[in-house]
């Protein structure tokens, strides 16, 4: 039983990790939690749905995912233009980004609600049977797919950030935008990169979450809180930390719910959060710089 729960917990963690990384990547450079991510996930779930529904025979899932990820990139850049550009130009404190992102998320959800709440939508099932068994263990095929895609994506992202020149530039801007400008890094290019990555991630998670949980306007917003918690515990802006925290959160929730029921889970999350931040205020990764004097 515990093995089964662990597997389910890891699968849940993979879902949280996808969202948390979307948060963390934006945080690493712009230093704010991008709550618009939740709204974008919902919007992408709808885009993906209508894309695959426009064909007589639904295209393979990876086509839908790629298409939606592409839409997600465009959408994220569009949002950046309408919501964040002036804030950047005004050099407002990053709390304004945060508020703008919150507002964007509410707008997307309400627009989807006005136009698409009439019919609940769902992606067609991807598999004939939903689970496969290894011995006594039953493993959901959907969860496995999400886990694999999520792992591949996160690994690719970590490689991109840690091993490539673009990654180096992103890290440089994350540490000090002014210095990196002096070093000749085009910071607006980096911002476009960051929002593209976040948009790509929201596109992929939109389709995957839509497949797993159904397509409805609140889809992303309800998951946002979990992503936020994971990304902050992980150590603001650290990708590795966010991933670790997301898996931890998934496992913890799974075990707690099994033993004590789901009602007290938010209480547990809160206490764990408090204890954790108390013991290790720098987050899991511990990489994050101290507040500057």
């Amino acid at each position, binding site marked *: 039983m515990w093995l089964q729960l662990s597997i389910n917990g890891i*699968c*849940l963690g993979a879902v949280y990790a996808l969202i948390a990384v979307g948060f963390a990547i934006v945080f690493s450079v712009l230093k704010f939690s991008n709550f618009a991510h939740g709204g974008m996930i919902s919007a992408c779930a709808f885009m993906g749905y209508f894309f695959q529904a426009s064909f007589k025979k639904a295209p393979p899932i990876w086509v839908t995912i790629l298409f939606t990820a592409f839409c997600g990139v465009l959408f994220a850049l569009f949002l950046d233009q309408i919501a964040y550009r002036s804030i950047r130009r005004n050099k407002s404190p990053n709390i304004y980004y945060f508020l703008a992102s919150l507002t964007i998320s509410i707008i997307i959800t309400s627009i989807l609600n006005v136009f698409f709440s009439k019919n609940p939508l769902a992606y067609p099932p991807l598999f004939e049977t939903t689970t496969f068994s290894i011995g006594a263990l*039953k493993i959901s095929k959907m969860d496995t797919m999400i886990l694999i895609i999520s792992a591949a994506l996160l690994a690719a992202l970590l490689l991109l950030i840690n091993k490539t020149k673009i990654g180096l530039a992103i890290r440089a801007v994350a540490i000090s935008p002014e210095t990196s400008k002096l070093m000749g890094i085009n910071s607006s290019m980096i911002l476009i990169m960051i929002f593209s990555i976040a948009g790509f991630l929201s596109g992929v998670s939109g389709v995957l979450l839509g497949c797993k949980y*159904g397509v409805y306007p609140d889809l992303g917003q*309800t998951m946002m809180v*979990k992503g936020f918690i994971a990304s902050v515990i992980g150590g603001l802006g650290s990708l590795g930390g966010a991933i670790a925290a997301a898996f931890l959160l998934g496992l913890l929730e799974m075990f707690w*719910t*099994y033993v004590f029921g*789901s009602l007290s889970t938010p209480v547990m999350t809160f206490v764990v959060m408090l204890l954790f931040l108390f013991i290790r205020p720098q987050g899991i990764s511990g990489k994050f710089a101290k507040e500057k004097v």
Partner: protein
Amino acid sequence: MKRILTSIIVLLTVFALFATGAEEVKTAEGPIKIGSIQDLSGSASNAGRPNAWGAEYAVKVINENGGINGRMIEIYTQDCKNDVTEGLNAYHKLVDEIGVCAIIGPALSNPASAWVELAQEDQVPIIGHFMDEVCTTNPDNGQTYKYMFLCEPSCSQQARDLAEYAIADLGKKSFAVLYNPSNAFAKAQADPFVKYVKERGCTLAASETFGWADKDYSAQALKIVASGAECVFLGDYLGQMLIAYDALRDAGFKGTVIGANTMAPPFANQVKNEVHDVYFLQNYDMLNPSVGNINALVTKHMAETGTASPQVNVGFGWDAVLVLTEAMKKAKDPTDGAELVSLLEQTKDLELSGGVKITINAQHRTDTMGMYIATYVDKQMKIVGYRKVE
């Protein structure tokens, strides 16, 4: 920019305070104004909008047939967003500004529970499908709220009907519940269900819950499977029902799944697992054109609004207007709230859209209506029974 913005805001506020403030005087002649408060936006809008449509369509049909003794009805629909404050705003707007003489209520109980005493003070009867008993009876002293009327079996009646079917017809003995206690709709059915099952001497093997922010119910499902329950009651809106059903089947649950009327189509087409041994409540035999006019109603609603599946709430809106207008037709002054209430209390054997007759009892609810039990055969909804537990 600043000036434009400021002036927009000032204009809107002034508009709010004064322009809409024109007091409407109730006149003896002219159209009869009624209100309708529904969830046009927010999390329950996919139920609230068909409800609003049903009520508006009923008014249209009645007006085409000559109205209330020659007087036309005007219906004003307001959004309450399943929120207490919004519901109160909508209520006061209808009663104090538009001057309606009766209100068609929403299908959810949370906003309605804020109007129970106001309606009495303002003498505005509210007729609707707020199935929680606290909306019609004061639980402190057991007194009936004089101006609240429920037009469907109350939540505990519905839960008993379903439990009775599972015990007597399906022969189940051990039960489990999996529901969302943060959703008043689910909670109002799950509690009486558990109570009734225990009263009938059956065992409650597991009671599991989930919240709005939870998306994965596999831990709960595993526990239910381990508890050995034969039959699981699911309670929440459609989206969560889908996840719950799939979680149960994924965890290897082989038994029967029963649930609220939110399991109606498109449930069967949207779950990922095979649909078998599923039984759920239905207020109407929606697919049967020979009972009442419910089938014509839902078909018309689907054609007019482009909704893909028949919506039970269309019938709710229609029924509430029907009950109200029947009382109005008998009234000397159809805009007099007190007179309407005494006539509404006498509602007897009035045939509603589902072909069932309603009689309002002393608790301002009804004992004469039962619930249909439906199942899926090859993903098509099929009615298999009709239960009415005394």
